């Protein structure tokens, strides 16, 4: 059986959970088995909806102690659930939560873990072979998980949530919940758009913008596309933009469907965080800018002319569709 941990930070299921269940259902199909989703916390409501994405059963450990995240507690509960339900494959998201618990589960269940996968595995005898992107997107590695229990964590935006079933009744699951040692004092959320790791469209700008006061044209384009904004590192370092917008090797790695880079040269450390994007558009006045080599579409021109024109074109398109 394939067990999917459907995460619900703050009691909400987000796209990541639907992606993981969709992926779990496909893995279960490959292995000729079923896909079960497990949900942690008392206030995660609407868990039965996970059935739509392919979970044939949804079990919930509805203990209020799980409404706050502590990797140690979550790993203890999830490994107990995996044992109880005799899971052969465990699937998590490669998110901040998943990264904190996947390694713990691997130790507890003596399971092989491959984290950050973006495609389906292949079964080969008792092994599971799976690929992932390594060296910041510069290569692909293939691994064989040889242990009886196998764990995969799925990169965000790698799989599209698909409707493959019906909502199901949520079954309670009783497993011991140890006391937490970490206490969550508060959560500061960034208001506004979809968080960068989850965004499907990202509009990003660099030092070519010259001055933070010029960001209005970037914001306008992002608003027209319903996109999340990002920036290059020097822009965040000089406090032109908030640090949470910094993408690249030392910032956040993202893989949106569309990444629009405005006045960014395309240094290798920047590319390391964005070159897994499905489609890259580069706007730069320098035809020799290295970013054009990594781009799908390019516009050679002055961003102060091109960006407002692109925003206009997008608005026109959105109005017509």
């Amino acid at each position, binding site marked *: 059986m394939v067990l999917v941990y459907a995460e619900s930070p703050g009691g909400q299921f*987000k796209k*990541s959970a639907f992606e993981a269940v969709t992926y779990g259902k496909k893995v279960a199909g490959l292995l000729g088995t079923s896909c079960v989703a497990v949900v942690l916390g008392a206030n995660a409501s609407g868990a039965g909806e996970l059935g739509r994405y392919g979970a044939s059963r949804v079990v919930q450990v509805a203990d209020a102690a799980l409404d706050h*995240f*502590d*990797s*140690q507690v979550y*790993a203890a509960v999830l490994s107990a659930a995996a044992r109880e339900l005799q899971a052969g494959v465990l699937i998590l998201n490669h998110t*901040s*939560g998943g*990264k*904190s618990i*996947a*390694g*713990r589960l*691997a*130790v507890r269940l003596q399971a092989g*873990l*491959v984290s*950050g996968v973006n495609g389906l595995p292949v079964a080969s005898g008792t092994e599971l072979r799976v690929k*992932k*992107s*390594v*060296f*910041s*997107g*510069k*290569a*692909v*590695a*293939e*691994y*064989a998980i040889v*242990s009886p229990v196998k764990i995969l964590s799925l990169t965000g935006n790698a799989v599209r949530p698909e409707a493959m079933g019906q909502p199901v009744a949520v079954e309670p699951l009783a497993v011991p919940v140890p006391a937490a*040692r*970490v*206490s*969550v004092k*508060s*959560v*500061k*959320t960034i208001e506004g758009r979809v968080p960068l790791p989850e965004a499907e*469209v990202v509009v990003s700008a660099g030092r070519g913008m010259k001055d933070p006061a010029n960001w209005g044209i970037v914001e306008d384009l992002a608003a027209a596309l319903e996109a999340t904004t990002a920036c290059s590192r020097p822009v965040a370092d000089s406090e032109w933009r908030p*640090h949470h917008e910094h993408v690249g*090797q*030392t910032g956040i*790695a993202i893989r949106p469907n*569309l990444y629009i880079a405005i006045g960014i040269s395309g240094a290798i450390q920047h590319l*390391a965080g964005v070159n897994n994007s499905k489609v890259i*558009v*580069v706007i730069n006045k320098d035809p020799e800018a290295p970013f054009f*080599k990594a781009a799908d*579409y*390019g*516009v050679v021109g002055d961003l102060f002319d*091109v960006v407002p*024109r*692109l925003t206009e074109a*997008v608005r*026109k*398109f959105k109005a017509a569709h």
Partner: protein
Amino acid sequence: MKILVCISQTPDTTAKISFTPDGASFNPAGVQFIMNPYDEWYALVRACEIREAGGGTVVALNVGPAANEVTIRKALAIGADEAVRIDADPSSAAFVAKQVAEYAKAENFDLIFLGKETIDYNGSEVGAMVAEHLDLPYISNASQLHLNGNAATLERDIEGGVEVLEVALPLVLSAAKGMAEQRIPNMRGIMMARSKPLKVVPPVALDEPVKTIGFTLPPAKAGVRLVDPEQMDELVRLLHEEAKVI
């Protein structure tokens, strides 16, 4: 305060990545290696700051072959007091975590620092594994750490925000941007590093649950399609009809 900092060695980001002809392993020929930036800039520097403020010892640990000693000496030059090298090829996250945990078990560290991920295999796996082996709390992607006696206050980057946490030492944490500012080793540090202790420890065995089959290069991009800067409607049309992303 006894602090352990796990440091790994990775190819420089600008290195050209290639593999042995059979595709089975990474080809290190001609590659410049560096200390993993998260380990160096954030974990190690914050560990040194904490020792400077409250006393104690910072131990830098690497699982790797003798060739890694250049990187280990750099950690000593930046400010670690002593170093340990577990003499083995770091074949997997499970293997590395087992070595770190085995060493740390007997040493009673108050804090165990890692980087949020290595920039080569991009796993973010080792920290959680170490914490589980040692039955300790683990805070991943920590961008702030403040201590008040035995109590730690941390900030952890999560999707779309920051969590503020409290936990008592000992604990394991992985460091992200924000934790500290990069330090460049000075001449005095480099000189002192030469005489600081670097202990070599044999590895413990592990039945590897994951085996590496091999590597390939990703398919090359088709090449950029240039659109006239006056023709932004055309770009939008391409993004809609051809790329199907809007």
